[in-house]
């Protein structure tokens, strides 16, 4: 129950609980990472070809962004719950909404990134004899990489946060620790869950920023 920062002298972290629950905590962390990676990968696999198509054909852009944008406005708790009649209480129940959310962010960034490839570079490539697919793969996508990686960063941090809500329906992840902390008025799992979640998001964010600097050193930071 509440009553200020120090509840009846109860500490915020009970280290004996932490030390006896390391396997459980790591299990939740692993689930969280798994959900994040799979939904991001799924998002990339869908958004990349769709983004290329949307950038090529003006007519596709609005419908695609509109369709995935619609998924994006569905509150995650509702989306997870609405999956249950179809996918039950399984990993897919969490993965499908998470992936669809990521598609929107990545789709936007793929199209914007490809848009920003300078026209004269495209002309030069054509002049050098690049066929369309080769041009896409070897010129356009690499130049669009900064924008795409920026989108990946946003998608990653966002996904890590949303997965905590999936735990409310017992789907796993670090949110289970937060839920346990709430339901048992027990602060330790709450703190552990929060700290690990923030740490995971920061590590992912910094890693992606570093990966971007390695992959595209000529790009402006941002």
């Amino acid at each position: 129950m509440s009553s200020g920062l120090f509840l009846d002298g109860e500490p915020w972290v009970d280290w004996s609980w932490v030390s006896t629950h390391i396997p459980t905590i790591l299990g939740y962390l692993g689930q969280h990472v798994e959900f994040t990676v799979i939904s991001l990968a799924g998002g990339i696999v869908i958004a990349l070809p769709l983004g290329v198509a949307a950038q090529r054909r003006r007519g596709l852009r609005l419908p695609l962004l509109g369709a995935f944008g619609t998924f994006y406005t569905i509150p995650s708790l509702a989306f997870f719950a609405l999956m249950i009649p179809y996918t039950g209480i399984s990993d897919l129940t969490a993965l499908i909404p998470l992936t669809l959310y990521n598609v929107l962010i990545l789709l936007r960034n793929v199209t914007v990134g490809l848009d920003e490839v300078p026209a004269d570079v495209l002309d030069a490539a054509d002049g050098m004899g690049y066929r369309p697919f080769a041009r896409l793969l070897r010129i356009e996508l690499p130049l669009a990489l900064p924008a795409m990686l920026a989108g990946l960063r946003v998608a990653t941090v966002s996904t890590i946060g949303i997965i905590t809500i999936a735990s409310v329906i017992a789907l796993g992840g670090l949110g289970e620790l937060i839920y346990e902390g709430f339901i048992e008025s027990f602060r330790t799992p709450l703190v552990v869950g929060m700290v690990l979640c923030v740490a995971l998001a920061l590590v992912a964010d910094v890693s992606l920023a570093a990966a971007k600097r390695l992959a595209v050193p000529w790009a402006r930071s941002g």
Partner: protein
Amino acid sequence: MNRKLGPRWLLAGLAALAIAATACGSTPSSSGSKGTITVAGFNFAESSIMAELYAQALEHDGYTVNRKLRLGPREVVGPAIKSGQIDLYPAYAATDLEYYNSGAGEASGDVNATVQKLNARLQPLGLEALTPSAAVDQNAFAVTKATAAKYNLTKLSDLAPIGNQLVLGAGPECPTRPFCLPGLQNTYGIHFKDFKALDTDGPATRAAFANGAIQVGLVFSSDSDLNKLGLVVLQDDKHLENADNLVPIIRTTLATDEVKSVLNKISANLDTKTLITLNGQVELNHQDPDAVARAFLQQHNYFA
């Protein structure tokens, strides 16, 4: 070699990571087990303890058990077992009967009659209820000691004349459960000033009692810390709540004689007092339901 990672390597790396993650997601199948059973529990501690008792006993007996603890309220667990997503859960005889008969009002204080009617309802669904335990956990309505003193309350019918001054707090499913809000209105004639959707006997309900947001709250009668919280349960003098003994509900295809005997043995070893003690270990001492279950089973020589 000072070659910087090119963009193509990055894309390839991400793809590999994705494939690896997908591969790691698959679980290995176990060999040599008597079969697989999926055990579920409702989203409160007592149910997790019960589910763990079933799960660990079955595991010791040679079954592979999948756990889906904290699955949700009955409105989620019921459909899950009907569709075969789960196979077994610890049910409460009277409340579950009124769930499977859509609130027909068949439950009573007689546990055997209640379970008999329950099985009649379960059979067409391919489910069955086993032998009920002596352990009972009923829905109970509590008020703070101060409220009880102020209005001189000892039983639920005392609320009827003053209901419109009081706010009721319970889980969100209360307005649709025959034993909850509708029952209080129909059996006791209590019409509350307002209803607050909280959690049944959870942190929100306790906080709501503490800051006066609610005066009456739904709790579990086998809760271990009601006294400590300054709450007193009002007596159910018109017997709205009926025989809510703990009883395993299982899908008939899995209810072999062996499984049944394992589960019935657990039910036989439980009574209400034991239940309250087990709950206390989780609620007050912050122990985990599975540890509490294991200790209990060891104490009763299940693993001998």
